[in-house]
């Protein structure tokens, strides 16, 4: 009894025209015969390269001599004959054809992603930020400040004595809660209604005139500076940069081919959660800072209440998941509790 024969096309690799052939598997060898029965090749099954089997695609077989075969193999009989003859299949292909493994892979994928997002990326960024030399961070911060100076900031309009008073009181507090942490306090001004302070990588803290004026009480300014010092101590600026790289890479991997722009939306929303965590951590630090200086949280509390009112008048409420800071109500509540603790 002769073994079953399978119709195929043979390309010699030199010319593009096709030759109709019949394939059969005999004694561990793949036999290629012309339609008149003349045997063209008789290759050991282990020596041939075969494409990963896909349901609707033909089998593409590379012979050692440079010729290729294309067999429709709709029923998969040729593949089975080759497997029976001892052809090896990659374990990855076997994984693909085993439904339980695919389900497991999906579950593992979701777990892995969730873990990376909740724990892995923040931990990795934290480790890298603290392992990174201070000079690299200072360089990043310095470069960022020079860009901001060129495009956005003006020099501060506060009197020298006012600046010195704030800097001195802040230095006392910093020495108490974060001894040995290098920082640099910079006074700047931006637009008249810009109420802000920020911590750049490398320990630069920028305080804008708008905030000092809006705060009225100097204790509130110190509370905000304590918050920024918290960012410096925890290296939040550097960690933020590193986390955005990590989440961006993962999102690109998942959805990158679909639409690069759509991939960036989950990244932006995903990063905000990290940012809110950082803000809460910095608020903790601000409270510790105030306690060390025996200052009441009342001024900071009042500051946030007035900020909230102003924000509502101007832009309306922002849903929390779209915000880089914890909701103002949540922060106000924390400082109110702290205020009443004393």
């Amino acid at each position: 009894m002769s073994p079953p024969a399978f119709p195929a096309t043979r390309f010699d690799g030199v010319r593009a025209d096709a030759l109709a052939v019949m394939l059969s598997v005999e004694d561990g060898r793949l036999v290629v015969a012309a339609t008149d029965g003349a045997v063209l090749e008789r290759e050991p099954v282990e020596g041939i390269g075969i494409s990963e089997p896909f349901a609707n695609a033909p089998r593409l077989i590379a012979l050692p001599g440079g010729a290729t075969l294309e067999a429709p193999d709709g029923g998969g009989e040729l593949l089975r004959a080759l497997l029976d003859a001892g052809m090896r299949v990659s374990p990855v292909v076997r994984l693909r054809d085993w439904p339980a493994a695919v389900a497991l892979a999906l579950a593992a994928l979701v777990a892995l992603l969730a873990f990376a997002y909740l724990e892995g990326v923040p931990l990795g960024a934290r480790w890298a930020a603290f392992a990174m030399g201070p000079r690299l961070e200072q360089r990043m911060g310095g470069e960022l400040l020079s860009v901001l100076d060129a495009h956005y900031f003006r020099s501060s309009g506060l009197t020298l004595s006012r600046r010195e008073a704030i800097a001195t009181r802040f230095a006392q507090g910093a020495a108490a809660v974060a001894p040995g942490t290098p920082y640099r306090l910079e006074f700047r001004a931006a637009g008249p209604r810009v109420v802000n302070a920020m911590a750049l990588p490398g320990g630069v803290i920028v305080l804008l005139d708008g905030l000092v004026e809006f705060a009225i009480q100097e204790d509130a300014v110190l509370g905000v500076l304590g918050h920024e010092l918290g960012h410096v101590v925890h290296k939040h600026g550097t960690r933020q940069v590193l986390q955005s790289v990590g989440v961006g890479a993962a999102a690109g991997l998942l959805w990158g081919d679909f639409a690069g722009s759509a991939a960036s939306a989950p990244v932006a929303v995903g990063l905000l959660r990290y940012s809110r965590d950082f803000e809460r951590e910095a608020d903790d630090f601000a409270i510790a800072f105030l306690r060390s200086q025996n200052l009441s949280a009342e001024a900071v509390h009042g500051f946030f209440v007035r900020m909230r009112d102003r924000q509502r008048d101007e832009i309306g409420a922002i849903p929390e998941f779209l915000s880089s800071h914890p909701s103002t109500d949540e922060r106000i509540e924390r400082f109110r509790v702290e205020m009443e603790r004393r």
Partner: protein
Amino acid sequence: MDSESLLRKRYADSSDEELTFLARQGFTYVAWALLQEEMTRRGLPQPAPEVADVAVKTPYVSQPVFTGAGGEYFRIWSVNLLLTLSTLGVYSAWAKVRKARYFRNNTQLDGHAFDYHGNPVAILRGRLLALVLFTAYSWAFAFSKVAGLVTVLVLCSAGPWLVMRAQQFALGNTSFRGLRFGFRAQPRQAYAALLPVLVLWLSPAVAGVFMTEPWWLGWTVLGIPWMHHRLKAFQRGHASYGDQAFTFTPSALRFYAVYAKGVGFVFIGSLVGGLVLAALFAARRGADPIFGLSSIESLIYGGVAVLFMYVMAGPYYAARVQQLVWSRTRLGDVRFLTVIKAWPLFRLVFRNAALTVLTAGVYWPWAAIAMARYRIESVRVESAAPLATLAGGIQAAVSALGEGAADAFGLDIGL
């Protein structure tokens, strides 16, 4: 569908300018068939051709067939993704090869499938190189001006060569009917074609370092269609199949037209989308539709609308570019056309985007398959003789140029 009716449908679908473009190509078989058809439509008598050379035979039209299936690709995709994530990206090179094989093996033209032969180790090498360059470019200016300028210089001097190698790798590792495609550009040609593009592309970043408000550099935006055209002309003009060379008829103006349409489309669409969204939300709260919204709310709704339009406009624009590029590409006497209609494409893209979002990304493999099927099956290959007959005259390339290069490292530039 037989080749004749395909062709008739194709011409019925063509715009006036496309028909005129074809007619201007001289009296080839395409123009002949067009002329015949148009004359029949107007009821003109058809005289016998006086020149026997004007191929009276109808051109042969082949439509590629895509046989991929979403369920099958889903299994490959999920295993690929898991292995890639758990090896911290190292497996991505192997995943890329499996994916490329899946799409090429499932693309058949005239009954024969395409194949991919990329070496995963070479792709991994290429990815590491790309990672280093990309990281350097993204962060160099954050560290110092000198580091940034050095990176720009490195990019300019290596860029054209890298694009050339990427194209050699992609084409040199694709085969059809046992023969490889190829890319035969010399480094000299790569620099002549791409160095001006790179300089224009990077100039805003460089100028931004030295000047405070280089607003006037916005004009480089106007150069983007020109840059895209130059890149495509380079990539297509030097491609080959066996010993046959592809040719590309340049037309920068047409790229400008495609870009203008795309930009106008995004602008109008996002305006309408944003207003509708705002009106919906405001109506629910009983406020004035437009002025009743706080500024932050209108920002959010407008942003959602723009994002939506962007997701929709991206594939539309890609399809139009595909159509334009293919209509300008030829392989000897073989001509390529793309039949893409706006509405069916939109329905497909909308369905893909909506289901992908609703299933938190799980639908993605089905979406990718549906998109590939649409794009591949919209191509028509027109030839004077059956493709199988033409194939008899095509041989493997004799020159080994680019063959060794195809194995060194596989860059994966998504251009």
